[in-house]
């Protein structure tokens, strides 16, 4: 039982990185970014290949974030410069990325036990060598989620971050502030997909594997995490959006874990994910309505 709680929370923290990305696109920019289902496995693919080639495991995280940023850039340029609708721009990049991921890593790629990951590399072992792999995964995922949160919070307080929030809120105002709203949207997509690919990279380290289909449903997961988090903390203004996202991510992973423990076959995982998402949306609407009626 204890093990299960630890591993569920670990999953929640790893996927919180993905949820930060979706927080930027969905919550801040109001942009339904489907790139996610492609940029998440992209991060994993790049990581798997680099790990197999013997690259430092920590560097693979940076590399994954960088390629994720490029994926976001593509969607941004397609949307802003080619004037393609937001949803379609994401679908185009996502679909293209499927082939690119296959080109990078093949349909499946396993990282051998002998290769060090971010959970087993010497620097980590020096500090956490006495603990089990599971605890190390928990601690490192937690630290990554916290680090991601700090970076996000700091960024959103900068002038650039403030302008990003303004674009999603009132794009016309950004134009009158003599700034190109299109460029800000592109920037948001770049940051978001860097986070998403980073999350994919950590999952690759954790599972020691890449599979071409691992991106399916990640967008839905991220959306659910963001919506659960913001619904729970709606009445608490002092709780930062990023904190809410982490809580949402852990809770959603827990819900899925509970469903599996109740005996639902693993093949139904994505179905569970989407049905739970629907439940979250309906509940969110219900609480929103109460507020409007009051």
């Amino acid at each position, binding site marked *: 039982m204890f093990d299960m709680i630890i591993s569920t929370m670990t999953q929640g923290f790893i996927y919180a990185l993905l949820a930060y990305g979706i927080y930027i696109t969905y919550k801040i920019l109001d942009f339904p970014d489907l790139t996610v289902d492609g940029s998440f496995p992209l991060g994993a693919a790049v990581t798997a290949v680099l790990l197999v080639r013997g690259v430092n495991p920590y560097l693979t995280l940076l590399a994954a974030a960088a390629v994720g940023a490029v994926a976001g850039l593509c969607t941004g340029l397609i949307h802003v410069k080619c004037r393609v609708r937001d949803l379609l721009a994401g679908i185009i990049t996502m679909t293209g990325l499927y082939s690119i991921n296959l080109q990078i890593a093949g349909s499946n790629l396993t990282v051998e036990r002998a290769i060090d990951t971010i959970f087993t590399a010497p620097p980590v072992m020096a500090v956490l060598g006495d603990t089990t792999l599971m605890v190390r995964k928990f601690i490192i995922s937690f630290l990554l989620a916290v680090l991601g949160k700090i970076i996000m919070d700091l960024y959103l307080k900068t002038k650039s971050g403030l302008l990003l929030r303004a674009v999603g809120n009132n794009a016309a*105002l950004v134009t009158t502030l003599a700034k190109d709203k299109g460029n800000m949207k592109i920037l948001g997509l770049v940051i978001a997909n860097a986070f998403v690919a980073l999350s994919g990279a950590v999952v690759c380290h954790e599972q020691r594997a890449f599979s071409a289909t691992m991106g399916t449903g990640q967008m839905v997961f991220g959306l659910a995490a963001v919506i659960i988090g913001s619904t729970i903390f709606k009445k608490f203004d002092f709780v930062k959006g990023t904190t809410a996202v982490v809580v949402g991510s852990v809770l959603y992973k827990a819900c899925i874990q509970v469903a599996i423990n109740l005996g639902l076959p693993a093949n139904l995982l994505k179905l569970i994910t989407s049905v739970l998402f629907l439940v979250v949306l309906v509940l969110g609407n219900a609480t929103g309505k109460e507020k409007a009626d009051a």
Partner: protein
Amino acid sequence: MLELKHITKIYNPGTVTETCVFNDFNLAVDNGSFVSVVGSNGSGKTSMLNIICGNIPISQGKVVINGVNINSQKDFRRYRTIGRVYQDPAMGTCPDLTILENMSLADNKGKRFGLSRGINRRRAPFYKEQLAALNLGLEDKLSVKMGSLSGGQRQAVALLMATMTSLDFLILDEHTAALDPKTADTIMGLTDKIIREKKLTAIMVTHNLRYAVEYGDRLIMMDKGQVVIDKSGEEKKALTVDDVLHVFNTISIECGN
């Protein structure tokens, strides 16, 4: 000086809904003048503002500011020296950001939006002072979200934000039209005060003939893409609401409205 030279603007060219708003339209606005623009719906007032700001492309003609042709400048470029307040109070501010955040954004207009702190606390006393001058009690609400303010309060802040940095032009697009009469009067008085204090060049489109007559040093009435009244100086001062209304009605009768 702002010059609109030989402007032609056709909406939906080549289709059955083709509408010609301007055919060889010309207007010059001197620096430091405050121009009120009136005219019925569809007379081209808002189109004119959108052409100046670069929001809509023109079919022919030139937009010239201080001798420089700005036709090729995109809208966001032009806003470096143009401030604009819209009819809808929600357009001029960000509802989910606080007053302080909104004012900080406006304060940074024309500068880089980099990775330095978005909010400069040292500027807060200055923002408070500006807000206090509005007499709306907003100076103690810096950390309140813009969205929770009333339309009039938002419009007042939008006006402050639009005029915070140095401008060539202030564009007022029926900015009192969505407000109740009393609030509209307050905002109008405030607008006049800011324009006088900062010696701004302003173009105000309004449906309120009284404002157009009372405020500003030049009045223009537009009809079907043409200037039908253009009074400034002593002539403008002698102008009454009835005079303007008379012309307005004459046009309306001709059109069968």
